[in-house]
C-alpha cells in the first residue's frame, strides 16, 4: 500500500486526517514535528505522498519542503500543504519549491480523499 505521511503540530488536525482516510487503501504515518519525519526519511523511509502543515514550531512546512527537495529520495515526492494560511506569497514560495498543491483548513474529508486519490492515482 502507498505510504502517506501527515505532519502537523496539531493533534486534533491529525485526528481529523487519520479518521478521514482510515477507509482508504493507504498506509498512514503521522508526525507532530517535521524534523522527526525528516530524520525518518533520511534513515530510509520512502513516503509516496507527504501532507504537511505550514505553521509549526522548530521547522515550518516550507523549511521542511526545502529539505525534502534537497534530499535525493524525496526530491520529487508529491507534497501537499494543509494549512490555515491563505497568503498568496506563501503559496508562491511553495510552488517555487515544487509543492504539488495547497489545501486550506478546515478541509472537507471527501475532498481530502479525492486529492489523495488523484495524486496517488488510486482507483476512484
Amino acid at each position, binding site marked *: 500500500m502507498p505510504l502517506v505521511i501527515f505532519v*502537523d503540530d*496539531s*493533534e*486534533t*488536525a491529525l*485526528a*481529523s486526517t*487519520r*479518521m*478521514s482516510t482510515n477507509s482508504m487503501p493507504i498506509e498512514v504515518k503521522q508526525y507532530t514535528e517535521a524534523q522527526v519525519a525528516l530524520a525518518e526519511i533520511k534513515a530510509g523511509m520512502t513516503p509516496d505522498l507527504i501532507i504537511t502543515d505550514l*505553521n509549526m514550531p522548530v521547522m515550518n512546512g516550507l523549511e521542511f519542503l526545502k529539505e525534502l527537495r534537497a534530499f535525493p529520495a524525496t526530491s520529487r515526492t508529491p507534497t501537499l500543504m494543509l*494549512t*490555515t*494560511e*491563505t*497568503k498568496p506569497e506563501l*503559496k508562491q514560495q*511553495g*510552488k517555487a519549491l515544487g*509543492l*504539488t*498543491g*495547497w*489545501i*486550506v*483548513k*478546515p*478541509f*472537507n*474529508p*471527501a*475532498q481530502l480523499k*479525492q*486529492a489523495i486519490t*488523484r495524486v496517488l492515482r488510486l482507483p476512484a
Partner: protein
Amino acid sequence: MMMLDSIDELLVHIKEVQLDVIELSNESLMKMSSFMEKNGLEIDEDISTALQYQDIVTQQLNASIEAIDSMKKSIEIFSHAFKSDEGLANESLAKLQEKLTATLQEAKDKKSRFSGKHAPEHAEDEIEFF
C-alpha cells in the same frame, strides 16, 4: 509607573487564560476523537470541521500570546528607560507607542491569515493544484 505594572500583570493573566483555553479545547476534542476511533465511528464534514477549528483557535491564541510577549518586552524597555533617565521618558513613550501599534497590526494580520476557510473571503476556497 504603577499603571504599567498593572498592565503587565493583566497581560500575564490574559496569557495564562489563553494557554489554559488552548489546553482544555485540545483535551476536549481529543477525548471526542478518541471515543470515535475506539467505537469505529465514521467522521463527517461537521466533525472534521470541529476538530480543525481547534487548530485554528490554537493558532489564533498563540498569535495573540506572541503579541502579548512582544508588548510586555516593549513595556519593560520603556520602564527601564524611564527609571534610568526621566528626561528620556517622552522619547521612550513615543517609541513604546510605535512598537505597540506595530505589534497590534501584526496580531491583526495573523488573525486574518490563520483563519483558513473560516474567514468569509476564503470560505469557498477549493484545493489548489499547482
